[in-house]
């Protein structure tokens, strides 16, 4: 193992780095990828394999942990350490790993069913604790591996195998949910936009604490075109809002639309691009109110007015660092543990 080198990326502090040049091939395992042809997962895999060499981390100090679902096969395709665990539990398993091994870069691969249905509890608590993890939530708004039931992000009225007359439930908005769960880093990106995907992944990896990245990912078998409106050249400019730190929140082919706060209700609304009240995006604001308001802009059914980019990026001590700090503090105060003294205790007596 080589000594840790400060990368200037807080999220990876303590993870050993290498000077040896790495390529995408170094991160590609010998396993045949078995997603359906045309699945959005391929693009995410390629982006991750393509961007990891830039970090220059020792490959053996990277771990991918996943749950159950199509996207959760991801770790098998990465030539790093990996665990394909059980449904919904990856954040919990990764918490134990990350909290006890600060020298690892730990990634969680999950989907909308895995993270938001069966694993909802673990997701919100990982976010609340701010464990040093990067969570990639592949959201295709459908259950793929079980062949096409509605998911907790499916739009209400969704007709699927289990809901022939339409689903009855309101969907989760993963970004809103994460913000409500005290997340310190929340972003959204799209599988087909390699450049945006890579930039968000880089920022997420650099963040210390839990980074949640929602990736709109197309399931071309069971929910094809779910994000078409955000991808199609003809429609996307009118419905996709790219958030950039410090920049006014504008969209449209000519930035002719803007987003401003309605002075009387406080909620956000679309306005002219040159409106003097157009919001300036600040993901680093302590107060998550504006980030949350932005997360509510999108229509939960059609996804029109969907912001992508980093909603929130603030500093809060990571769980594992605090835990290690308490161990250090206890040892500094009272010295290393003496097992015999512990066993003897204070009220012992001697016979003979």
């Amino acid at each position, binding site marked *: *193992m080589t000594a840790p080198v400060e990368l200037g990326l807080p999220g990876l502090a303590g993870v*050993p780095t290498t000077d040896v040049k790495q390529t995408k091939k170094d991160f590609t*395992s010998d*396993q045949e990828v078995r997603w359906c042809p045309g699945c959005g997962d391929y693009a995410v895999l390629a982006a991750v394999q393509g961007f990891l060499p830039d970090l220059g981390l*020792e*490959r*053996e*100090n*990277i*771990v991918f*942990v996943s749950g159950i679902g199509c996207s959760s096969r991801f*770790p*098998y395709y*990465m*030539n*790093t*350490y*990996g*665990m*394909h*665990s*059980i449904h919904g*539990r990856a954040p*919990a*398993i*990764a*918490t*134990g*790993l*990350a*909290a*006890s*091994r600060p*020298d*690892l870069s730990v990634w969680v691969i999950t989907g909308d069913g895995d993270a938001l249905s069966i694993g909802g*509890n*673990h997701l919100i*608590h990982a976010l609340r604790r701010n464990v040093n993890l990067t969570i990639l939530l592949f959201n295709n708004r459908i259950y793929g591996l079980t062949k096409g039931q509605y998911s907790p992000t499916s739009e209400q009225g969704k007709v699927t195998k289990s809901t022939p007359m339409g689903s009855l439930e309101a969907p989760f908005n993963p970004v809103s949910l994460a913000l409500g769960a005290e997340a310190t880093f929340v972003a959204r990106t799209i599988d087909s936009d390699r450049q945006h995907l890579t930039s968000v992944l880089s920022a997420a990896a650099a963040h210390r604490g839990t980074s949640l990245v929602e990736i709109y990912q197309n399931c071309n078998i069971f929910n094809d075109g779910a994000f078409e409106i955000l991808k199609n050249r003809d429609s996307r400019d009118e419905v996709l809002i790219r958030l950039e730190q410090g920049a006014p929140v504008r969209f449209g082919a000519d930035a002719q639309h803007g987003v401003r706060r309605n002075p009387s209700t406080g909620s956000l609304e679309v306005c002219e691009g040159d409106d003097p009240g157009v919001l300036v995006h600040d993901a680093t604001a302590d107060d998550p109110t504006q980030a949350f308001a932005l997360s509510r802009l999108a229509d939960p059914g059609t996804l029109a007015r969907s912001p992508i980019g980093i909603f929130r990026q603030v500093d809060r001590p990571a769980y594992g660092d605090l*835990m290690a700090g*308490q*161990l250090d*503090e*206890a*040892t500094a105060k*009272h*010295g*290393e*543990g003496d*097992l*015999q003294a*512990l*066993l*003897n*205790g204070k*009220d*012992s*007596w*001697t*016979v*003979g």
Partner: protein
Amino acid sequence: MTVKHVRELDRVVIRFAGDSGDGMQLTGDRFTAETASFGNDLSTLPNFPAEIRAPAGTLPGVSSFQLHFANYDILTPGDAPDVLVAMNPAALKANLPDVPKGATIIVDTGDFTPRALKKIGWTTSPLEDNTLSAYKVHALDLSGITMEALAPFELSRKDASRSKNMFALGLLSWMYGRSIDGTVKFLREKFASRETIRDANIAALKAGWNYGETTEDFAVSYEVKPAAMPSGTYRNITGNLALSYGLVAAARQSGLPLFLGSYPITPASDILHELSKHKRFGVRTFQAEDEVAAIGAALGASFGGALGVTTTSGPGVALKGETVGLAVSLELPLVIVDVQRGGPSTGLPTKTEQADLLQVLYGRNGESPVPVVAASSPSDCFHAAIEAVRIAVTYRTPVFLLSDGYLANGSEPWHVPDVESLPVIHPNFATDLNHDGEGERDFWPYLRDPETLARPWAVPGTPGLEHRIGGIEKLDGPGTISYDPNNHERMVRLRQAKVDGVAGIPDLEVEDPSGAARLLVLGWGSTYGPIGAAVRRARKAGHQVAQAHLRHLNPMPANTGDVLRSYDRVLVPEMNLGQLALLLRGKYLVDVVGYNRVRGLPFKAEELADVIMEEVGAL
């Protein structure tokens, strides 16, 4: 000055009983501590309601603490109290059925008002009718005397009466010649920042002692001489504490950092509390959002090379099942501690039972073999924990460690081991490529050690050994996904063979002093003490009885079948409806006889002795 007599006894059972808020557990703990340092052998049985503060003065709110101490080695907290200390009418009513005629009852009359009596369904006071005529009764206004003694402190009525437990402790300490110095020191530390409360409690304690010494009500005090014990260092210890120390010791002996993932649950929470104090031993404790996350985090830590442990009770085991199955498939070390309580469902959270045996063995999907170790006494929890870790680490497998509510909260003197004498556990992490691949060496995560069948434990951070594992069936050797029918059958049988082949399990030892017994009494877990005491009684009555106790429930000692078959009759007492009996019948085709009680309480020695003698008589 009254002339006081001292009478010598060989053993005494005292039960302190009062309202949940009366501090009976503390009183019992302190009497126990003084008794332990005096050198008696002892055994304790706390018994308290699940409600933190049930309505005052009611029967469901009664909390008690029973202590058995003797000048010889004893095995149980005693069947029935020789002395009952009842702090209110409800405590008297709830405990009276357990008190044998002729026993001593010390009762606080302070709360014997018509209203309090009515609350528990007594129309007349038992102090005034014939209810207690068969007992030696000391009816004292403990509350009133305590308040009088504390008058100088100008406490509120409520605060002053709170110290009545210390008065009772002082009185009992005088009666049995226990020192109160340790308790004075304890009170000084506990109430260091609240001087008045501290001084009032100490004053009440001393007043109780002096009351016994000076009043005519108590003409006799008793002496129970120290028990003969092998030389060494001793301390009093509960099962939960011993188990916690066992885990810390096992971490040290294996060189692995301890990671505990746990969710609070009665009666296991004290292990989480205890381990959270030992950060300078490198112990990480994680209070998870639920039972599933608790075991998940522990397994994640194990993947990273820590000693992953999770602690729970029966309902928690039910929730953890899927992750235990994952650990079976991943073949990673993991210790799951089940401090059993009455079930099913929420059941009896604060009462004991041993009805999770089949759950831990078979409560998962698929063929999912897991070794099981069960502690037999409070102090044995220490060594059982080390044994569970040894098996988990050596064989890369989850291991269940069974305790129960009785062991968890009960206590006994413990001969503290020299840490140099503890076994060393070798993790043997994989560091090198282990297989000749196509043209180059590579790493197979499921290439097994031919002797133990354990797979290599290669932790992240080890260069060149990057690999992926998961819950999907793996190809024997390479560990890649495999749906091949023959491979699945091979892997199922390999996992089973690995657990069946756990080595280092001593033969089942039979204790049969006469060598001529035809009846074997076989138990497991916390029934060791009661069975031992019952067997002693039966032998004293002239019967020949053999006793054996299982510590390893999976795999069982190699000679188990031979032992069972060498007796005409095998009696298996269990605090369940016959779970071990079912296993023995199925595995060894021996027609064992069960004796089963599920009252939330340990067996009574007398009751078991009767059963044993009946069985011997029937042969």
